[in-house]
């Protein structure tokens, strides 16, 4: 998956437009960085990458890049 494709998938999961986020975007700056969005992220990782991430993993994520790095 290319970086652009990852950004598109992530934007869909976070329910934002792709041009609203960049690698440096702080997750806490997103309006809807709430428990439902975090859960969506867990399910997306399982569906798209076969990866089981936990709420502990999400706690360590600070920027969009932290998520992108795990998307492989």
């Amino acid at each position, binding site marked *: 998956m290319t970086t652009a494709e990852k950004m598109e998938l992530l934007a869909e999961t976070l*329910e934002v437009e792709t041009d609203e986020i960049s690698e440096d975007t702080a997750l806490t700056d997103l309006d809807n960085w709430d*428990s*439902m969005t975090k*859960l*969506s992220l*867990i*399910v*997306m990782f399982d*569906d798209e990458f076969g990866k*089981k991430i*936990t*709420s*502990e993993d999400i706690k360590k994520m600070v920027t969009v890049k932290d998520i992108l790095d795990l998307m492989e």
Partner: protein
Amino acid sequence: MYNIVDLTGRQILITGASSGMGRETAILCSKLGAKVVLVARNEVRLQEAMSNLEGDGHAYYSFDLSKVDEIEDFIKMVVSERGAMDGFVHSAGVGSTRPLKLLKPAALREVMEINYFSFVEIIRCLMKKNAYNEGMSIVGISSISSKQGNQTKTAYCASKSAMDASVRCLAKELADKKVRVNAVNPALIKTEIYQQFLNNSGESEDAKNIMQRQYLGIGEPIDVANMIVYLLSDAAKFITGSCVDIDGGRLSS
């Protein structure tokens, strides 16, 4: 000593028998004299569960219940090798925590197939001639989620509500054949699904509220197994079409 839940000589088919409540039920049934037939996907864990059974005459089969269309041949084979059943416990089940936007038909179907379709299909196949003995008792492991909704739990709650509804219908339909059908509805019990819940939402406000309401704490698999063996036994001969809550007080608060 008089034992009201004596299961001596009864043959009980148990799905999801390699872990959690299914495994605990299998062990308890064996202690009460039953011959148990364990079904689950993972052969290694099935063997481990088998090694904990008391008595002899038990058997295990590795089978993936999501292959609903293959259940008919599978049950035929089990019955031809083991003989008729006196009880069936459906403990196989998967948890599902999905926001609506990620609840595509494939995800919904997977949960329904394992938690619900396989339950009805196994009963359908067991109701054939020589596959069951008069007095058979069927117990589905449902959940209080069948009665309480929660965000992201659409598939799981629906699968359990479907089981409850089927229990009421099948109990009436099979009464003439002297077969009883019931469900047990546990709240949070220490199983893998509970661990999933902790991983996904363990620290949410919602999780804290749930734990406050379930004021006897987290249940143990044996708490559910105890009720299941009662429903399997003749002591429960007047109970059919019931969905019994085992919830540490949760629905009362």
